[in-house]
């Protein structure tokens, strides 16, 4: 019962946040709406006993990504009026059609499988704890995990390389 109440409250918050993000004129309010949505999703993870994912969700998305968004919005200058004309014709109809399609998909998937809590996975105490996640990550899925870390490292190195790329120094050189 308590679970249902918490879910209902935060589902409403998540939807309201998403609506604010789309409809707000001011980018700061959009960012706050997105933040509310992401935080609500973290609460859903807690309800599903996935505490580790919930913590990560808050640290990465609410803590780092959204802070960076806000920082950039403020750096660029928040007082500038946004250009609200829509460059792509039929943008709104296409959006509505896609949203409806997504809704149908969610309902279809939901009618096949509906999860509440973690009873389905056996022991309630263990699911989503760091130990279980670590066993899966470094046991069953170690190669995909290492591949992902490699990708991220390459991306980080590329960012540094691009950031340090000096146009003036390489202008006169021949070849690639």
């Amino acid at each position, binding site marked *: 019962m308590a679970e249902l109440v918490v879910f209902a409250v935060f589902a409403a918050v998540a939807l309201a946040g998403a609506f604010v993000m789309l409809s707000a004129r001011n980018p700061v*309010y959009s960012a706050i709406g997105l933040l509310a949505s992401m935080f609500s999703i973290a609460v859903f993870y807690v309800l599903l006993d996935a*505490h*580790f994912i919930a913590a990560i969700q808050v*640290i990465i998305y609410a803590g*780092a990504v959204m802070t960076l968004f806000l*920082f950039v919005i*403020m750096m660029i200058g*928040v007082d500038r009026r946004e250009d609200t004309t829509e460059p792509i014709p039929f943008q709104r109809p296409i959006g509505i059609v896609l949203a409806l399609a997504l809704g149908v998909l969610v309902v279809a998937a939901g009618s096949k499988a509906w999860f509440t809590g973690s009873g389905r996975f056996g022991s309630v105490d263990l699911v989503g*704890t*760091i130990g279980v996640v670590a066993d899966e990550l470094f046991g069953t899925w170690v190669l995909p995990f290492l591949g992902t870390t490699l990708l991220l490292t390459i991306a980080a190195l590329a960012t540094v390389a691009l950031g340090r790329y000096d146009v003036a120094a390489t202008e006169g050189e021949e070849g690639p």
Partner: protein
Amino acid sequence: MTGVLLAAVKVAVAFGFLMGTVIVLVWAERRIVAFMQNRHGPNRAGPAGILQTAADGLKLFFKESMTPRKAEFALYIAAPVLAVVPALLVFAVIPVGAPITIGGVTYTLQVTDLDVGVLYVLAVSSLGVYAVTLAGWSSGSKYPLLGSVRAAAQMISYEAALGLALVPVIMFTGTTSLAEIVEAQGGTFGGGLPAWNLVLVPSFVIFLIAGFAETNRAPFDLVEAEQEIVGGYHTEYSGMRFAFFFLAEYINVFNMAALTTVFFLGGWHGPRFGPPAVEMALPVVWFLAKTWAIVFLFIWVRATLPRVRYDQLMAFGWKRLIPVSLVWIFLSMVAIGVRRFGLPWA
């Protein structure tokens, strides 16, 4: 039902404890800084001026809360609350004493113990930056905006170092629950020194420095540098709304000191002796003694060091603290590997 009641009691006690702590903390800071600067400090209200904070709080409570005309009202009101809530939430997972047993029932002296305690602390404290950012922006004034942009950059930069400093602690204790991290520091090294995580000296130093930066304390108080940007993000706040920021700042200082105690100074561990009642209370005494020692360090540093320049702050965070913590994590990994599997050539 008793579980709900117990949780409510714990929350109420923790809240009251934090409020009382802040009253003492603000007074202690003003007195200690005054003595270090050859002044008297507040010494009129109550014995040695200890009621000064209560008087100031009462004054702020009755003051008018002004709102600038260009303020974004909704966020302007929300920001002080956003500052206090994460500060209070962090304290919920800090174990302030050994579990006590009364009438066959064991009570843990922390509001709740989370399996992902360390991550919870990092997650919740990372939300504190929104209060500063939104307060600065929603004030509709340039100095608060400058302060909040500084805050966003500073807190993102030092959060990384703060988290990385804790990785070796997690690796050596093998858990992310704060209660278990304290538990793991129980023994001694060969019967001599207590087995605190303080032996992970680089982690301790990095955590402490990043902690100064995360709480916006001197020498990293660029966020509210009075001489440059008036008062930073809370320039336009007055009355109770300002008091909320003030409260959050001091709760954060106490939390950071308490977390340093939990992670590196053995938490509530210490000699236990005497009759049962005394023996039961001693862990709390040790915890508070260690935490206040770190709080004193915070105050001492504030009275000693000048503020760093902005470029120094960024360079120090990204080019010194983070690389050093990465190297230290690597060395810790090697040490744990050697301990478990032996030397590679053996």
